[in-house]
């Protein structure tokens, strides 16, 4: 702890820790000193360039910039003397000398720091007016506009780009009056490293950086600001919806709010406009004579109730299944599974977590007893080493990606990346191991082989906290680095170096995602990583852990709240009679003890005719599931399909009844992010047309099916969840209004759990599982010589239902492309941008080629966002035997010029 010192600011005695700047000391004491180039809230180093924050030191009689000058014991500081006011007025006058005086029509008016200080200091006309050379604002991409005439060259945007976002895209260019902020000129947007995150807009103190679409849409005092949670990835960033006339004008952020501390990515900042898209569903639809036609709620819900009851009576409850949604709130998922379990009477409920992290939930539960991210996002600020495997973090979880980059760049924490592609993080990595797709077990086993051979294991941790260590030793013994090199094609020397760096770090964090889980060996991969972490004692402490990054905003919550076929909320097993009795009592219904079907099993059962009806809430299996030709046949084979969504998705187009639901911006509730953090979202908009809250629709339907259930407000559902779910036991609506909480949080006094397994694993002892390398199900051969891997890109999300209806995101990337190594393209005479035909044993698509050495020769990569070229027409529905997750990451394809 630094020593406390005492100084006097404007006759007030102020005590602060040594090392505090004068500005910070003054702000702490409630004394405001004008400042422009520096904003302490962002935690960026001061540049002392604007000279507005000068203060007078009595002893020296001199003026010093308070933003960078450290407070000292006994110092006497004056912040508001006539001399200072004169100096500050001069600063503002100089800034205003070539600044347009168009505050009347400037969008920043009311929120502009320059305007604020000119007002405070009474600057009416600059004393040194310069005839400004008219300069047109520059708009490089679809979103960000730079108006050089309004720029005061404070450099905040450059700083945030370089030091927080770590894109390093913009800098000062030129000199004198010609100085401006810019991307390197001549670079097209695609060539530039700018990710269009727009964080430069939020830090800009004037109107120089702005969002094109927000121009003229409303000023500070006309906008209502509603904080809520971003609906895209699992990071769970806090966003501020700036609303005018029931429309979100702009998304902003604030450094004091949320896990993102003010940073946002291109999707969170510019990709929200889908909520007011003209294609939003506004009325229930019923299929009549093969066509979906508008109907009333009564007609639609009565029809659904009657059809579901008929099917239930005729074929039994297990002939019906439900797909819940990782896009919906915790409360909605809770109600959904309650509806399926208590009203229908089956455990056939699952959701898309099956397609992303089912192997995590199963694998980590077996090894540790809890299948979630062990540590927190904040831990990347203290970790000593990060091992990223199978996660393209900067594109799929951009805010966490930036945190990892900061650790590597600013703290020199070693970054080990294992990925078949040369993803952006490899530019920052100490080692990049470019393993062949589907060979992760061999790679991780070899790292453990090195750790054991070189005596780098944490023996005390193994002895005190784990079991079955001997079995692990036996299993990894044959996996020498040389042997693994043959399987993975990663040089043995790199494996050895990576193993040493990881094992020797005091606290090392493993980060992984779909590259690990979406394999027929997904559970094995997860178990291997769990082994590696236990072997080195990297669990139960800050900065360590096994950290699966969840793909969707609320996929963690949908799992927690039991949109899964084998558990009740809080992972309480359905085949446990005591738990069954507990929920039967709470829900006043007879429940089935038989675990239900998983996503792919549901589709298969539908195809076989065993399943008669499916109720889908906010999912789009027609694009998201493997082998979509098969999915289409299965859904068409159903007697009855209900889809509840905000758009007429590819799946909804096949439905018998479509129910219009509400988007995140229109509802209250909670989301649980990837680090188990339960956060409140707040309604800011009125839902369009007749659309209704998801839980409200489900409760109405339940009543029509003879099950009395009703809630006045989502807080009542939250209370019911807390009463039945031990890990959510202390997470009440009241507490969430002023904080967020990480589960487990068993009671109202519990502060939440930033990292799991401290002192004791959830299952008691951590369990080592011996894992053998098994090749992927379908490998390239003569007919299909390329290995296809699928995934996401930064600008789009999943099946594109949301992101492709965003103007900015669609303009950034409007068509898909398959990544091909230039050497392969050369051989096949394929030019960049040329259309190619990609075929697998299950289907074929046509799509443009993008030549890039991000992918290794003989491998190709395709995002699954595009309905016009669905990657999942190619993928294989081969499943991991335990977690039932499909192998999205490896299948064999052929490629020909189209």
């Amino acid at each position, binding site marked *: 702890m630094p020593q406390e010192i005492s100084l006097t600011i404007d006759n007030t005695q102020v005590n602060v820790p040594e090392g505090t700047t004068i500005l910070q000391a003054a702000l702490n004491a409630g004394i405001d000193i004008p400042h422009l180039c520096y904003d302490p809230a962002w935690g960026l180093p001061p540049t002392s360039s604007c000279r507005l924050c000068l203060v007078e030191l009595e002893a020296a009689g001199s003026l010093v910039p308070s933003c960078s000058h450290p407070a000292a014991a006994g110092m006497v500081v004056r912040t508001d003397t006539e001399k200072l006011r004169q100096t500050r007025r001069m600063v503002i006058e100089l800034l205003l000398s070539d600044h347009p005086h168009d505050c009347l029509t400037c969008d920043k008016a009311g929120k502009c720091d320059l305007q604020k200080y000119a007002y405070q200091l009474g600057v009416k006309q600059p004393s040194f007016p310069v005839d400004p050379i008219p300069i047109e604002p520059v708009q490089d991409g679809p979103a960000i506009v730079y108006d050089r005439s309004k720029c005061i060259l404070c450099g905040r945007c450059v700083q945030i780009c*370089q030091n927080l976002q770590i894109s*390093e*895209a*913009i*800098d*000062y*260019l*030129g*000199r004198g009056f010609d100085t401006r902020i*810019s*991307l*390197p*000129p*001549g*670079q097209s947007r695609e060539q530039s*490293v700018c990710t269009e995150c727009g964080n430069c807009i939020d830090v800009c103190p004037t109107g120089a950086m702005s969002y094109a679409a927000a121009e003229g849409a409303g000023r500070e005092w006309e906008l209502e600001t509603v904080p809520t949670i971003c609906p895209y990835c699992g990071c769970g960033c806090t966003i501020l919806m700036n609303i005018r006339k029931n429309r979100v004008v702009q998304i902003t952020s604030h450094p004091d709010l949320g896990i993102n501390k003010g940073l946002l990515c291109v999707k969170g900042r510019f990709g929200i406009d889908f909520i007011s898209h003209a294609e939003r569903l506004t009325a229930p639809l019923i299929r009549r004579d093969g066509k979906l036609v508008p109907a009333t709620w009564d007609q639609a819900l009565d029809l659904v109730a009657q059809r579901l009851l008929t099917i239930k009576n005729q074929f039994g409850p297990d002939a019906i299944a439900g797909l819940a949604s990782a896009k919906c709130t915790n409360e909605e998922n809770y109600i959904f599974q309650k509806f399926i379990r208590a009203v229908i009477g089956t455990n056939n409920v699952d959701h898309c977590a099956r397609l992303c992290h089912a192997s995590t939930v199963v694998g980590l539960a077996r090894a540790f007893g809890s299948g979630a991210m062990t540590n927190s996002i904040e831990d990347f600020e203290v970790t000593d080493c990060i091992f990223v495997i199978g996660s393209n973090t900067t594109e799929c979880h951009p805010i966490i990606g930036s945190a990892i980059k900061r650790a590597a760049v600013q703290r020199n924490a070693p970054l080990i990346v294992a990925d078949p592609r040369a993803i952006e993080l490899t530019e920052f990595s100490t080692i990049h191991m470019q393993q062949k797709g589907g060979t992760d077990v061999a790679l991780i086993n070899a790292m453990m082989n090195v750790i054991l051979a070189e005596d780098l294991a944490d023996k005390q941790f193994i002895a005190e906290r784990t079991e079955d260590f001997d079995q692990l030793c036996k299993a990894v013994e044959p996996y020498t680095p040389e042997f693994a090199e043959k399987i993975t094609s990663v040089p043995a020397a790199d494996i050895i170096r990576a193993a040493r760096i990881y094992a020797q770090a005091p606290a090392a964090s493993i980060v992984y995602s779909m590259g690990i889980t979406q394999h027929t060996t997904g559970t094995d991969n997860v178990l291997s990583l769990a082994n590696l972490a236990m072997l080195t004692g990297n669990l139960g402490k800050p900065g360590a852990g096994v950290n699966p990054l969840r793909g969707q905003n609320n996929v963690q919550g949908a799992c927690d709240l039991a949109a899964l076929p084998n558990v009740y909320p809080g992972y309480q097993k359905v085949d446990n009679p005591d738990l069954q009795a507990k929920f039967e009592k709470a829900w006043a219904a007879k429940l089935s003890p038989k675990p239900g079907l998983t996503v792919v099993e549901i589709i298969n059962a539908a195809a076989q005719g065993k399943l008669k009806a499916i109720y889908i809430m906010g999912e789009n299996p027609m694009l998201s599931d493997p082998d979509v030709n098969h999915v289409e046949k299965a859904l068409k084979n159903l007697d009855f399909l209900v889809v509840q969504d905000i758009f007429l998705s590819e799946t909804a187009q096949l439905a018998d009844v479509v129910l219009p639901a509400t988007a995140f911006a229109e509802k209250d509730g909670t989301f649980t992010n990837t680090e188990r953090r339960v956060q409140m979202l707040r309604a800011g908009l009125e839902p369009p047309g007749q659309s209704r809250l998801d839980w409200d629709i489900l409760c109405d339907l339940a009543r029509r099916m003879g099950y009395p259930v009703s809630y006045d407000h989502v807080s009542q559902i939250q209370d019911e969840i807390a009463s039945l779910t031990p890990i959510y036991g202390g997470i009440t609506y009241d507490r969430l209004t002023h904080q967020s909480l990480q589960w487990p949080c068993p009671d109202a006094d519990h502060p939440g759990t930033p990292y799991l397994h401290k002192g004791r694993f959830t299952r008691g002892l951590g369990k080592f599982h011996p894992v053998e390398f098994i090749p992927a199900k379908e490998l390239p051969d003569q007919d299909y010589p390329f290995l296809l891997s699928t995934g996401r890109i930064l600008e789009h999300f999943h099946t594109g239902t949301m992101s492709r209806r965003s103007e900015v995101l669609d303009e950034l990337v409007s068509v898909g492309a398959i990544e091909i190594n230039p050497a392969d393209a050369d051989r096949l005479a394929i030019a960049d941008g040329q259309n190619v035909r990609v075929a697998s044993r299950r289907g074929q698509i046509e799509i443009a080629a993008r030549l890039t050495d991000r992918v290794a020769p003989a491998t190709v990569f395709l995002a699954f966002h595009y309905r016009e070229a669905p990657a999942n027409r190619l993928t294989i529905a081969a499943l991991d035997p335990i977690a039932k997750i499909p192998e999205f990451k490896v299948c064999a394809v052929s490629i020909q010029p189209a």
Partner: protein
Amino acid sequence: MPGEKSASVEEIDVSAARKIAAGHRAQGNSLVTVLQDVQTEYGYLSGEVLEAVAEEMEVPFSQAYGLATFYSSFSLQPRGKHHICVCMGTACHVRGAANILEKLERDLGISSGETSEDLKHSLESVNCLGACALGPVVVVNDAYHGKVSSRDVDKIVADLE
């Protein structure tokens, strides 16, 4: 357009720039020093060359570009085979440097700051070369011409190959 013959038209070999940067980096020298030597090697700093230097020095491309545009001694356009500098400092100015520059612009068909399309000539005005006693001063490549008159300009231009 003069000066627009950008580097991207023909492939530029950036290996020399990489070598220079690597050498300086090993000695812990600053980016400015590297850019000076790289400009000497290539005659100017193209986008490709700057990108290679930035990569080699492990600094952001944006920062290398920013630096190159800050100092007027760095040129982002290809310079001509003959690079002509006209001093416009006070001493040269009072002795008619403006007329000299104007005549050069007319005779070469390019404005100050431009390069001729055939990459033969480039023209630049500078603020002071520190050779005030010799004013007006014109520097062609590294050769100084003092007390230059309009007639001398004809001779200077005629001598350029």
